[in-house]
């Protein structure tokens, strides 16, 4: 074996523990990214209690609740997909992931409906109507669009990652003995879910 090939072989060494640790560290950075915005939310919520409650009254709780259910369901099916692959049930795993992607698309559609409803009411970034609102409400909506926007972006990235894993599973690159990739994408998806679990009560339920 040539030296380069030997090194390549060394580089290709599969270490699920390392992959898991590395990905948890990455998730940690995601947590801090959202955590920073949650701290900003906490500070402004304290500064503008009344305005924030006023803002909450303009949210559509029904759509928010439906979206929460959709996302929680998708998290469950993602976990089931990993379990299925662990037992070697390739087709079932792919089916569960397909369902997860349908859920994520559903989440984005509902989010779009919510945002466009606000847009038609004149509540949107850069809209002149926003300047007429009380200061605290402007911050509330600023945070709302920023945080749910970041979250929606993560949903999109997560969905793309799941599609990528589906292809890898279909091609047999990810299988019962080589689960790191699907495990990590699953973790990412649960993080997306987890962030929403906090966003939902903060923006919709505090009244």
């Amino acid at each position, binding site marked *: 074996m040539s030296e380069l090939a030997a*090194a390549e072989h060394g580089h290709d060494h599969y270490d699920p523990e390392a992959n898991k640790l*590395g990905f948890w560290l990455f998730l940690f*950075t995601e947590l*801090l990214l959202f955590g920073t915005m949650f701290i900003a939310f906490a500070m402004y919520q304290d500064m*503008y209690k009344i305005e924030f409650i006023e803002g909450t009254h303009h949210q559509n709780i029904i759509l928010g609740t439906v979206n929460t259910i959709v996302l929680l369901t998708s998290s469950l099916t993602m976990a089931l997909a990993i379990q299925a692959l662990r037992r070697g049930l390739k087709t079932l795993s792919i089916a569960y992931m397909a369902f997860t992607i349908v859920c994520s698309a559903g989440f984005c559609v509902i989010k779009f409906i919510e945002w466009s409803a606000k847009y038609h009411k004149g509540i949107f970034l*850069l809209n002149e109507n926003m300047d007429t609102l009380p*200061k605290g409400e402007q*911050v509330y909506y600023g945070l709302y669009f920023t945080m749910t926007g970041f979250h929606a972006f993560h949903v999109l990235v997560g969905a793309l990652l799941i599609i990528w894993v589906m292809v890898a599973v279909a091609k047999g690159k990810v299988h019962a003995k080589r689960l790191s990739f699907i495990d990590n994408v699953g973790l990412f998806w649960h993080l997306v879910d987890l962030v929403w679990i906090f966003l939902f009560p903060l923006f919709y339920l505090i009244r």
Partner: protein
Amino acid sequence: MNPDSKNFYEVARGLTSWLFTTDHKRIGILYLICVMTFFVIAALLGITIRLELFSSNSEAGGSLLGGGEIYNRILTLHGVIMIFLFIIPAIPGVFGNFFLPIMIGAEDVSFPRINLLSWYCYIIGAALALFAILSGAIDTGWTFYVPYSAKTGANLILPLSAAYMLGWSSILTGINFIVTVHRLRAKEMKMFRMPLFVWASYATGWIQVIATPVVGITLILLLLERFLGIGIFDPTKGGDPILYQHMFWIYSHPAVYVMVLPAMGVVSEIIPTFSRKTIFGYSFIAWSTMAIAAIGSLVWAHHMFTSGMADESRILFSFLTFFVAVPSAVKIFNWLATMYKGSIHLEPPMIFGLIFVLLFSIGGFTGLMNGTLSIDIHIHDTAFVVGHFHYTMFGGVGVMFFGALLYWFPKMFGRNYNKKIIYLCGFLFFVGFNMLYGTMKWLGIQGMPRRYADYVPEYEFWNRVATVGSWVMVGGLFLMIFHLLYSVFKGSKAEDNPWEGTTLEWQTTSPPPLVNFNEPPQIPEKPYDYPEEVKS
């Protein structure tokens, strides 16, 4: 030919063998080339700043740069390049990448391809930063404080995305180092047998992972504020500009430990090696490294004593700032105790190690002055602060970057340099450095503000001393850089262990083979295990 005798330069040739390499040593060399280039550019910008400050304009009848705007831009560039493109990636990117795996007996880092990705993030970030310079530059200072940064006409999207990409580079390197230390240590290489440079890189990795995302999201929020008016930092919409400062410094103070911890790690390698003595208080140094990483995350608001904050929090942050000096002092005492009764060899790396201890102590003490609430109100935003952080960042990290380069140069390139030239460079650097930054502290105490392009004539004499000092210092440094560059190609062949080092990198050939060790290295019980007779 026995493939074992090939070093990592010889196994593959050509540009693509470098640009697509996953070998941690080659990535280290790539970082070295870039970091060095940016250092030279930023040093020249620094010289330009000092030239502008050579004379008080009211007397000389005009400014060199023709006005404050260009001065502000040069000042910003100097800061941005030195901080983001030189100091932060310098030691982890070059020496961490090259030596961390070797020092724990590994073949590579845990994620070699992500390691390369991290270098590309760095290059993209650097390219964006340079493009920002060419396309009209930035005038906000490296801190991008709101509300000015949300309103300035300068194009901020380039430098902010540059900082964001560089942040990713930093996070990916950090994750790689943490995982590598946990997963790839050779069997007998227990955590508390690791060389202290590895400990320092490990702690740095943690700070990079913990702190960098915060500044990442802060810079994105700033962009959103500028382009979409989200109002989080805009007082006319109910936002609070001070929040930006908090979020910025929550990263940017720990970032100074990202810069300084690896430098301290290098000192902990150099001092025992050239004292031929086991390091004094190994576990204390290891733990103090972790303590600095932890406490250093809780002191950010000492940058904001005059920004508007409750007295209680100012006192608390002042106290915590004193507290973080304790583990740093533990290290200084341990290094001095290591040298005590050692067999001290004043080779060039050791000279730089000693320069570090002296300059960093001065920087540390003046740091305590800044951290003292009452004194800080007086010296805030004066040249004193500039003097202080150049003592810690340049006198500390910059010096140790060159110290590390001198220490590991024979191993990295398999060549020697001329020691006499390096002694001369070290002397010029030391004299010029103190002329430049020592004087700045004196000017600051007298009330000279920082960042200004001009000053009243009373400050002229000491400003001239500082400017002359900058020529001496940079002269010494550039001479060293050119000599080292020359030695890479023309130096005499180096031995495998020219300094009688005991850590693993000295057990392999100079330069090392692709897989780092031709035969498995012997892991010593203690990382700096010198025989008893040398010790006493």
